[in-house]
Each structure stands twice: as structure tokens, then as C-alpha cells.
């Protein structure tokens, strides 16, 4: 068995020279993916892979190269390529590797030592239970699409010429399913998903039921008339908006003038119920890690505190530009990319109300179950609009399905018009791990049919 941390350090030594900083990442993973359909396994994929990425910084100029071929020749070609590419980049005095810092040794609970021993048959069983739970929810759930179980056992090895050397293992287990429901008016679909670090934490029945229940609930949905009103956002919907907020709260976005929140540090930017956190050390957080993509210890950062903008997320580059400390938010997407500033476990602090209490408090409004959007939630302009399906609420009761409407506000409007926050915080793994409870939001434009 190759000692990958030693290999990374060795490549650092070969490539580094006076004035040339070098960082090497090696990732190794073992993945299983199972897809079932109609109670049978449809696809089964089990593989291992590894890769190496080399970042060279020469006088503030950065080059990067990667390979999946670990032959001596390929490794040498890779680091030489990184060094050569650095000559193409523009010098930037703020570019450089971070100084090594001690990594806290607290247990983040991201390693399920037992996962490697879980038989494939048990994993197939999980996928089958997810599908069954979706189909059993209601006879109108006719089939599932992409009913998948997947897991990944990952190791990350990182070394750099400033003396950092670290490694960690992380396990991820996930399941996803689309439930498809049909009635006399046509078909609908909704997804259910769950993700965790531990095999035992996955709840197949809950994942399947979510897909079945949501798909059935929006059958025969009709548009309501266009109006400005109240919406309740399911956590899966809120998470899409929070993804955009996480981008607007990155120091890089501010420095490069692409955040709608720019220049409002210390100001009230949202309702005082809104507290947003990024926490790279959340126990059993799917984005938790002892150190970030460039070897800086991860931490918890309070970004918006009771509506007041307090901080941004930083990597070492954006921090150096402002003479600040990195918040440990350099993310890496395997070995194929340079570290990039991004959220870890990013979430809104939950409140005290249950979902049902929030619904009960609405005189007239839309409970949004699913949305579709592409670029409609824009962290740069702050625009926020999407297509929506959901349930109509009158006098605190759900009265019927709604489909084919749009909902629109702005990200400023979102932060300021949140009037109730649920207690049901849920982490949704979109881009990173984004968590949000059920929210009540007022003053939203609901676009549907013409006013009668």
C-alpha cells in the first residue's frame, strides 16, 4: 500500500525550489453506486480511483496540473507542467500558500469505520427500501426514477513546501429518488434525498416517503391568480436561495464586485430572525473536514447575526488582500481543481415553530414544495425568481395543489421579509451542504393567471 502522504511530500520536495512554492494534493476514493427500478437492481458500479494535483506558485503566479496516472514519468510531467503554467499567469502579490497552523484534533465524526464492511447486498437493500417507501406512500405513485444509493470512502492527503502535511478520511453515504405520481390530469414528480457520514444514519423510509408524498401532493396543481402574498418555503426550496446567499457572502465575490451585499458590512441586511453560519467543523456535517483545501484549519463563522452582516467567508488569498485571517473555506472538488473559496456547512439558525404552526398562521398563501430555476436566483444582481409547485393555504389549512406559477422577490426581499423560522433545520447537499428550516416569507410576487 502506497503511503500517499509521503508521496505528496516527496513530489513537493522534487518540485519546490527557491522562490517557488508547491502544494500537492492526492485524493483516493472507493465508490459504490446502485440504482434500482421496480424492485430490481438496474445498475451497480463499484470502483476505486485516485488522482494527484500540483499547485505551483512562482512570484505570485499560480499554475496547476493534475493526473490520474501515478507513474514516475506522469508525476514528473504533472509538476513540471504546473511550474511551467505558472509562467503564464499574472503576478499577484496576495497569491501564496498559507503558513502551517496546528490542526485541532477534535473528532468531527465524519468517518464511518464500518462502511467498508457493509456488504453490497445491504446497500442494495437500502435502495430497494427507498423505492418501496416511495411507491407504498400512495397508489398514485406509479414509478421511481433514479432511485439510487451511493457511498464514497475518501482519503485526502495534502502537503506543501511551507511544511504542512495532513491527511483525513471521510465517508459519505447518500440516497436519492424521484417519485413519479399520476392522476387523471397528468403526472408530477418530486425528489427525496438523504445524505450523511454514517451508513446507519441514512433513513431509507423517510427518503422514499418524501418523494412519494411530495409528488402526490402536487397532482392536479393549477395556477392561482397573480398576486403579492405570503409563501412558506420547504427546506429544499430555501436551500436553493441560501446557496446564492453563500456566494454573495464570499470575500472573493466582494473583492471582485459580484455580490449584491457589497459594502454593507455591519449593517442590518435582514430581519432579526436571520442568523447565517458557516461551520466547517460541524460534527457529522457532510462538508466537515479538519482542514480546508489548502491546509488551513476549518472553523465556525457567524456571517449574519440577527440580521446584521458580521463577516464573510475567506480563503488565504482573499484574507491576505484584506489583512485578515482565512476562515478555512478553501474548497476542493477532488484533485482536478485549484482550491476555490466556498461554503462548508452553511445554514440558517432554526427558530422555535413547527412546520404545522407556520402553516396555521397563514391566512392565504402558497406552501412551496418544489421549485425550478436556472440563474433565476442571482447573487450578483440579487434577483430571485423561480417556477414553483405547492399547496394553497387558506385560513391556516391546506386547501389544494398549485402548479405552474412563478414566485419572485429579491435576495434583499428574502432576507427582510422572513417573518417566521421553523425548528426543522435540514441540511441539503446542493453545492456544499446548505441547511435551512421551513420559512415563512411575505411580500412575494406569485405569478399565475390573469387577475379576474
Amino acid at each position, binding site marked *: 500500500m502506497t503511503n500517499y502522504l509521503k508521496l505528496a511530500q516527496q513530489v513537493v520536495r522534487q518540485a519546490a525550489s527557491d522562490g517557488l512554492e508547491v502544494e500537492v494534493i492526492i485524493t483516493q476514493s472507493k465508490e459504490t453506486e446502485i440504482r434500482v*427500478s421496480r424492485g*430490481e*437492481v*438496474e*445498475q*451497480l*458500479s463499484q*470502483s476505486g*480511483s485516485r*488522482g494527484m494535483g500540483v499547485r505551483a506558485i512562482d512570484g505570485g503566479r499560480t*499554475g*496547476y*496540473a*493534475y493526473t*490520474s*496516472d501515478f507513474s514516475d514519468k*506522469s508525476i514528473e510531467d504533472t509538476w513540471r507542467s504546473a511550474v511551467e*503554467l505558472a509562467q*503564464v*499567469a*499574472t503576478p*499577484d502579490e496576495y497569491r501564496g500558500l498559507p503558513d502551517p497552523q496546528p490542526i485541532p484534533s477534535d473528532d468531527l465524526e465524519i468517518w464511518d469505520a464500518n462502511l467498508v464492511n457493509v456488504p453490497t447486498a445491504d446497500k442494495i437493500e437500502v435502495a430497494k427500501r427507498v423505492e418501496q417507501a416511495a411507491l407504498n406512500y400512495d397508489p398514485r405513485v406509479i414509478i421511481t*426514477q433514479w432511485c439510487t444509493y451511493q457511498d464514497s470512502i475518501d482519503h485526502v492527503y495534502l502537503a506543501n513546501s511551507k511544511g504542512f502535511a495532513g491527511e483525513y478520511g471521510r465517508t459519505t453515504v447518500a440516497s436519492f429518488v*424521484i417519485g*413519479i405520481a399520476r392522476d387523471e390530469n397528468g*403526472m*408530477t*414528480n418530486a425528489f427525496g434525498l438523504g445524505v450523511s457520514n454514517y451508513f446507519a444514519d441514512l433513513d431509507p423510509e423517510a427518503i422514499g416517503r418524501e418523494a412519494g408524498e411530495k409528488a402526490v401532493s402536487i397532482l392536479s396543481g393549477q395556477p392561482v391568480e*397573480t398576486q403579492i402574498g405570503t409563501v412558506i418555503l420547504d427546506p429544499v426550496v430555501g436551500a436553493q436561495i441560501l446557496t446564492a446567499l453563500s456566494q454573495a457572502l464570499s470575500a472573493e465575490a466582494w473583492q*471582485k*464586485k*459580484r455580490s449584491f451585499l457589497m459594502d454593507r458590512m455591519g449593517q442590518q441586511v435582514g430581519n432579526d430572525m436571520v442568523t447565517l453560519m458557516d461551520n466547517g467543523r460541524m460534527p457529522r456535517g457532510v462538508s466537515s473536514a479538519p482542514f480546508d483545501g489548502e491546509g488551513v484549519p476549518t472553523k465556525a463563522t457567524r456571517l449574519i447575526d440577527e440580521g446584521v452582516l458580521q463577516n464573510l467567508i475567506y480563503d488565504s488569498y482573499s484574507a491576505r488582500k484584506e489583512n485578515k485571517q482565512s476562515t478555512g473555506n478553501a474548497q476542493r472538488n477532488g484533485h*482536478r*481543481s*485549484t482550491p476555490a473559496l466556498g461554503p462548508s456547512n452553511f445554514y440558517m439558525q432554526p427558530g422555535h415553530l413547527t412546520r404545522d404552526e407556520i402553516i396555521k398562521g397563514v391566512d392565504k398563501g402558497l406552501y412551496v414544495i418544489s421549485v*425550478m*430555476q*436556472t*440563474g*433565476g436566483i*442571482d447573487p*450578483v*444582481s440579487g*434577483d430571485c*425568481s*423561480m*417556477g414553483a409547485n405547492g399547496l394553497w393555504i387558506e385560513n391556516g389549512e391546506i386547501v389544494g395543489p398549485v*402548479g*405552474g*406559477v*412563478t414566485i*419572485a*422577490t*429579491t435576495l434583499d426581499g428574502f432576507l427582510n421579509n422572513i417573518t417566521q423560522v421553523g425548528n426543522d433545520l435540514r441540511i441539503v447537499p446542493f453545492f456544499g451542504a446548505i441547511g435551512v428550516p421551513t420559512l415563512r416569507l411575505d411580500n412575494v*410576487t406569485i*405569478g*399565475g*393567471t*390573469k*387577475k379576474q
Partner: protein
Amino acid sequence: MIDKALAQKVLSAALRTGADLAEVYVEDVTSLRLALEDTKIEQAVRGADRGAGIRVVFGNLVTYAYTDSLDEASLLDAASAAASAGSGSAKSQVIDLTARKSSLEYPILKPFDSMSISDKAALLSQMDEAGRAYNPLIAQVYGWYQEISRRVWVYNSDGVAAQDDRFIVEMGGGVIARKNGTIQRAYSGFGGQMGLELLDKNSVAGHIQRQAESAVRMLDAKPCPAGDMTVVMCNGWGGVLFHEACGHQMEADFITKGSSAYTGKIGQQVANPIITAIDDGTIPGRRGSLRFDDDGTPAQRTVLIEKGVLKDYMWDLVEARRAKRASTGNGRRESYRHMPMPRMTNTYIDQGEHDPQEIIESVKKGVYIKSMAGGQADISKGDFVFNATEAYMIENGKLTYPVRGATVFGNGPKVLMEIDMVGNDLALDPGMGTCGKTQGAKVSVGQPTIRIPKVTVGGTDEPVSGAIG
């Protein structure tokens, strides 16, 4: 990359537990990406990916294993892992592997290495200067250049031996314009399956100035009204609507499962008779073009809808076997780490009869979508949504003012029946599309200018009143 004898050996190993079909897919990819932002070349990344995927089919079950190493031992290990789901003994044999030839030619006039990396970086700097010089309201310029050389080999136990080279180049840029508290951005790219002759036909300065013009104009946009409206969509990239809202529903995996609205509708009227739609994987220069797909099937042109009537779906090898018919050459995968699935190639609505100007003039009150971010659609119901990045109100047949925040939400199959004008200005997109059906695939989309008489538009402004159309 691996010789025929080794391929044969690996396939035999994969068949040993009673599979119906075994396949080995080998890939060798190198790439270069340069990115500029804040006037600096911030990223210069070179990548090398090489590996193989072994796929084994046992009735309805498909198993897969991949490896980063192409030596015999690693390939046989992967074959054995993929075969381990079977429990019988070999019942199929490897048919003699004879290399298939393709008559399709996608010429590369100027290879990627005919220009130095620093000259490529210099193009991004030119883009930056031209963007900033356009207008003082331009607060930021960013740009990217990417080239990918992808060589693939496919061998299967039915005797397929196919090889394809795909050279994709792309250049793009965007700007952020800022005035008082308002921020707008605009970005776009251009590229295709070609060499650096791409740069002879396109000016980087011209490209970024068009983005700057759009972003600056959108700074003065008013909020888009919400409600049902007539929408006119631009030619070219506007074809993303058909791709998302209808194209995906014509992919065979959704058909065989019964989750598509188009299941069982061959021969039926599914669109207005003025609509013909085509998926064509054989157009030289386009991102979605292939000589062979990732199952080793020759690429082809498939008429999906002819004069409103549904003619065929898009098939890959596995779904075609399930349906006991031939593949249409639409089996594609992101890399050797992925199993192929039915995917679009270059998909478009064909030429119509109307002058695009005439289409705009026909609208009393509506929205003209000139550019948009990508789209999204759900399978089964067929609802789609896309967000306009540049849009204008149409009032009494004239474009009157820019609107921001417009979201168009409709139902694909329904809209296809309702589209009532198709322009004579068919164009494919400029060449920057990547479809993300759980895996990335390079595609092209296209259409002439089209008119949708009534669809839901979302925005934050007061609802529109007055007549539709």
C-alpha cells in the same frame, strides 16, 4: 491505447459469469483551462485523465467498474469486479473485433498546439481591455479559454471496435456593470469541435463588447411584469427551451420507464404542424457531434418531430436492447468513470416561414427574450423554467424597454402544441452548451425565432392587465 488482443482478453474475462454483453471503454483526455478575472490570469490548469470502464450486461442489470490504470492486471481486476454480479458460466463469446470506420470528418485546421499558452492568455487580456474600455460602468470583466482533447476507444463482445477523437475548444467572457445600487451581468461563450480556426472567425473584443452592451442596457431595465403573456424567443441559444422541456422527454431511458409524457406517442401529433425537430450528431464543427457515440454506435441524424408528428426517440445501446431495436447513436458519458445513458447531441427546431421582425410585430403586449441563462425541466410533467438575462417588453409590435428578473415557466409538451410562429432565421447556439443530466455532456441547441402565444412569466412588477397576444 490498448491493443485488440488485450481488449479481447478483458472482454472474455467480463463474460465469464454468464453476461449477455461486455464492453471496455478506454479514454485518454488532456485539457487546458485559462481563466481571467480582475485583469489577472488567475487560473492556468492542465489536466490528464486516462482510464477505462468495464460494463457488463446481464438481462436488465448493468454492472460497471472503472480503473485509472490501463495495465493488463488492472483491466482484468475491473472486468472481474463487473462480472462478479453474475453467477453462471460464460454463455457468450467475443465476436471478432473489426475496427469500424466512420466517413464523418470534423477537420481540425489549426491544432491546439499551434499557438503558445501565453498567446492564448494574451487573448483573455485583450478581452479584459476591450470590456473595460467599453464603458466606465463596467466594474468587472472575466474570461475563460478551454481546450479538451478527448480520445475514446470502445470494444464490445458483439464485435464493436470503434475509435473517436473529439477536440473541443471554447472561449467566453462576461462583464459586471454597476450603476448606483444596481448590478447586472452578462456573459456568453463561443466554441465548437474544431481547432484554433475558431479564433479566425470570432473577435474576442467584439464578443466582450456585446456582453458589455447588454449588461449596461440591462442596468436601466424595469422589473418584469408577472402573469400570462406572449413570449417571443430569440433564435440560436433560445433552443435550450426545446432541449430542456421536450428533448429530455424524448430520451429513451425516460421512455422505457414510462416516466416521459411522450411515452407511447410515436405517430401522434405532439406539436403544432409548423414544428419539425431534429437531433443531429453529425454536424461538422458542433460541440455535440460524434463519429461514434460512447457505446461505439455511429452518430446519426434523427428526426424527432416531423411537421408536428412524433417520429422517434433518442436511444443508446442498453435502452435499444431493452426495446429490441437499433440505437440512434445517442449513448454518451461524461468520462470513463461513468456509464453511458441516452443524451442529446445537437438538437434544434427546424427552419420555419416567418420573418423574425414580423413575429415581433405580431405581438400587442408581450416579452422578447434575447438571451437567457440555461433552463431546467422536470421529467414526467414536462414543466420547464428559464430565466431571461436580457429581455424587452413588446408593446404594439415594438420593443419598448428592457425588463429584468423575467422567469418563463410553462409546460413543454403544451407549449410545443401552442407555438404558433416559427421564424426563417434558424441558428445553432454559439457553442458553449453543456447539459447536466447527472453527468456533463457537450451539446448544441438551436432554433429560429419562435412565438409562444401564452405562457406564465414571473417578475416582481405589478401584474399585467390587458389583452394577450
